[in-house]
């Protein structure tokens, strides 16, 4: 049933897959990935593929077309389009339970929200979904990617502990991945993330440990030079935060000492430069002119690179730098710039810092205003953080719930599978047992048949033996008769004739006449013996004798009168044993039936030969039966089967209370 259903669906889809629409879908898809076209043209083709796929109404085809379309949207930075298509796929995949597509689409949707930075909780939601499904599908690489993103989101939302947890989970999963450049980079990201988190939480030893790990990972990479430098920078940052300015500076300077650092990553160069200068300032360096130059260079580089974050960093550092020298005018202008920048890019941490600076630098109410704003912002941030963390916890909880549910369903499924397997095995066993039993039954039946057949065969053999010994006996008798009777009498006649040979007279003539007539008598006797020899008294009667024996025995037991007639025209020696055995059985079966059911007094059995057919007729004067109505008993079935085996026919003629006649016709010479 299930098989037929599946087959039906398949053939149905296959028919559709042969349609011209599907051909055009394939064509459009091909064009959409062809490099002959511009991206815009490719987008157009992909759109067409989607339209035709929608016409086909086959979800799997549509999903694939959508995925292609989504990818091209991404190339074209059409993130909204990308989101829309992925959302469609997400819904579609859910209806047809296509887990892989659900995982991919939710990963993409997570990425969209992640990138947008607006609804990080949505990103977190989709990532969690994608992660959970990937977990079921054992997609380790995808899981690691997702976890990296999740941990980043958590980090962004200041859920450092959660971020670290996700990162550690990802690191564990990464063990399953091939040790290639991509994996190393992922691991670097993860170690770095943990290091950053630890730095923020001021767990410096741990921070150093993880940054070192990240550094080691970067070293394993072919193109890991810049990552190494980042790690070094991060380590220096840790030392700086820790207050170990000497070590921090050492590292910073070694990074700055790298040739071509500026060419490699000017933004990073600016960052390091700023860090060196600020660290030196923190360390109490009084070479203000040089430091100022360094800050200025960092500021210019950031400015020219249009790198607002870096620029913000530098301006804040500059503000602090001037403030430290009591150059309040300058400090204020940089603090104001940083406030503006931070607001522009909504970098809350640094915004808070700039507000703090401003509140300190601005006198009177204006300063207090900034302080108030600072407090308000940090309060709202705190509330937001808490809210987000709660949200994350809830999503995680829901996913856990789903996980549990899934586990329950899986367990249920497992039980189903196990119980249906047990059922199947049991039914197979039962089937085998029944089949075996039937086979045994058939075998036993065959054995019984064999035994009875053997019995008849033996009967015939012993009959043959009897005939043989009777023949031998007869031979002996004739021999004795010839020897003792004929020979002696011939001798007597000859001898007497011989003795009267020479005698003459009336008496002698009379004597001789007597011996001559004696010779005549002997002649007759010899003729008789010759006749005896010629007619084989036992020939042809053997099988009939067996049947006669059977009939006599059965009718005696059943207390029936019987008449048995048979023709001499059938030479039973020409009839096969199989036929004889079956005839014997049929007769036996019939007699049994008559005894069991007919309540007959007499039975007439006859064998005739008509048109090369052996005709066996069994007539009883019992109660009879309706051959058309009555359910056929085993006896009648057996008789039918046996006749069929001999290519013969059976006719049952019967009426209620009118006795039964069974007519069996079997080919004589087969």
């Amino acid at each position, binding site marked *: 049933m299930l098989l037929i259903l599946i087959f039906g669906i398949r053939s149905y889809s296959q028919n559709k897959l042969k349609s011209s629409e599907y051909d055009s879908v394939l064509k459009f898809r091909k064009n959409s990935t062809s490099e002959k076209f511009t991206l815009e043209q490719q987008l157009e083709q992909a759109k067409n593929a989607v339209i035709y796929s929608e016409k086909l109404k086959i979800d799997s085809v549509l999903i694939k077309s959508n995925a292609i379309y989504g990818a091209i949207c991404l190339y074209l930075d059409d993130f909204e389009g990308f989101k829309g298509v992925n959302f469609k796929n997400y819904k579609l995949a859910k209806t047809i339970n296509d887990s892989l597509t659900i995982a991919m689409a939710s990963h993409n949707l997570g990425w969209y929200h992640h990138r947008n930075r607006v609804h990080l909780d949505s990103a977190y939601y989709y990532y969690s979904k994608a992660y959970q499904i990937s977990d079921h599908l054992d997609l380790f690489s995808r899981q690691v990617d997702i976890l990296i993103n999740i941990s980043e989101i958590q980090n962004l939302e200041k859920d450092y502990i959660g971020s670290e947890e996700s990162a550690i989970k990802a690191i564990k999963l990464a063990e399953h991945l091939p040790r290639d450049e991509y994996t190393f980079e992922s691991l670097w990201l993860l170690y770095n993330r943990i290091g950053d988190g630890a730095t923020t939480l001021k767990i410096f030893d741990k921070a150093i440990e993880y940054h070192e790990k990240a550094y080691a990972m970067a070293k394993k990479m072919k193109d890991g030079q810049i990552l190494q430098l980042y790690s070094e920078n991060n380590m220096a940052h840790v030392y700086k935060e820790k207050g170990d300015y000497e070590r921090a500076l050492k590292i910073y300077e070694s990074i700055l000492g790298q040739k071509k650092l500026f060419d490699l990553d000017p933004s990073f160069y600016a960052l390091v430069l700023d860090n060196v200068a600020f660290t030196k300032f923190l360390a109490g360096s009084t070479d203000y002119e040089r430091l100022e130059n360094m800050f200025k260079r960092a500021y210019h580089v950031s400015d020219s690179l249009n790198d607002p974050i870096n620029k913000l960093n530098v301006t804040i550092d500059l503000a602090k730098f001037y403030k430290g020298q009591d150059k309040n005018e300058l400090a204020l202008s940089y603090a104001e710039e940083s406030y503006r920048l931070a607001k522009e890019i909504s970098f809350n941490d640094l915004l808070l810092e700039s507000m703090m600076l401003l509140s300190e630098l601005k006198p009177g109410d204006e300063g207090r205003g900034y302080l108030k704003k600072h407090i308000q912002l940090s309060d709202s941030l705190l509330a937001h953080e808490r809210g987000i963390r709660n949200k994350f916890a809830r999503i995680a909880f829901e996913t856990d719930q789903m996980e549990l549910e899934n586990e329950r369903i899986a367990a249920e499924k497992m039980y189903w599978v196990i119980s249906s397997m047990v059922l199947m095995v049991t039914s197979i066993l039962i089937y085998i047992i029944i089949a075996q039993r039937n086979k045994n039954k058939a075998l036993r039946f065959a054995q019984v048949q064999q035994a009875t057949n053997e019995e008849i065969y033996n009967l015939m053999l012993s009959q043959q033996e009897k005939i043989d010994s009777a023949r*031998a006996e007869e*031979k*002996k008798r004739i021999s004795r008769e010839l*020897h*003792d009777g004929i*020979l*002696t*009498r011939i*001798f*007597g*006649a000859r*001898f*007497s004739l*011989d*003795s*009267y*040979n*020479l*005698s003459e007279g009336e008496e002698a003539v009379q*004597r001789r006449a007597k*011996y001559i007539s*004696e010779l005549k008598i002997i002649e007759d006797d010899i003729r008789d013996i010759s006749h005896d020899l010629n007619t084989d008294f036992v020939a042809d009667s053997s099988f009939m004798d067996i049947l006669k024996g059977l009939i006599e025995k059965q009718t005696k037991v059943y207390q029936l009168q019987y008449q048995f007639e048979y023709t001499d025209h059938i030479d039973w020696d020409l009839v096969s044993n199989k036929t004889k055995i079956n005839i014997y059985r049929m007769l036996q079966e019939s007699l049994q039936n008559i005894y069991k059911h007919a309540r007959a007094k007499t039975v007439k059995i006859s064998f005739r030969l008509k048109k090369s057919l052996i005709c066996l007729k069994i007539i009883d004067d019992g109660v009879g039966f309706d051959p058309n109505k009555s359910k056929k008993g085993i006896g009648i079935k057996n008789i039918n089967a046996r006749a069929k085996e001999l290519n013969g026919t059976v006719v049952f003629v019967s009426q209620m209370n009118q006795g039964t006649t069974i007519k069996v016709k079997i080919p004589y010479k087969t």
Partner: protein
Amino acid sequence: MQHIHILLVDDHPIIIEGYENTLLTSKKENQILHIHTANDCDSAIELLRRAAKEKPYDLCFFDISLPGSSDGKLTSGEDLAQLTRQIMPKAKIVILTMFNESFRVHSIIKQINPDGFLIKSDLTSSELAEAFQYILKSPPYYSSTVNNFLKKSVASDIYVDDINRKILHLLSQGVRTITLREHINLSMSSIEKRKKQLKLLFSVEDGKDETLIEKARNFGFL
């Protein structure tokens, strides 16, 4: 005048008639024959017993196959001959039989050692007349078939004892080896052993009973 007392025993009256006629017509002038006849063992026994008391027979002619005595003790002419040897040792015994197989001939000679041994199939009335005179004067007289058998078995180096002769005889009669035991008071294994010996003796190579019988017949043992 020579008075000769004679007993003729044969179950066929016609044969007795023939014997009587031959003897009476061929006797010498000076011979007077007193002939008694019997058709079965019982009457023969009666005659013999009476004669033994009164006047013993000079000559007894016995057929071999005869209706046995009513007490079942005597079954054939052989038995009558042996009885005669006991009760009238002087009587000369002549066996007249249809049996012409070597085995029977040998066993009769061995058991009775008759003064005359005539095979009916050889016999003519003149031979009987000749034999009669010969036996009266200088027995024994054996008919030519008997003589041939005796010559043959003497001529061949092969010695076959009575039991083996009987085995050969029975086999030649078509008795099967399995039923030999009913005729010979021997175990099956010893019968088989004897058969093996016989086959060796007559150098029967194919091991068949037919070949054995054929060879034995050629050598005159059958």
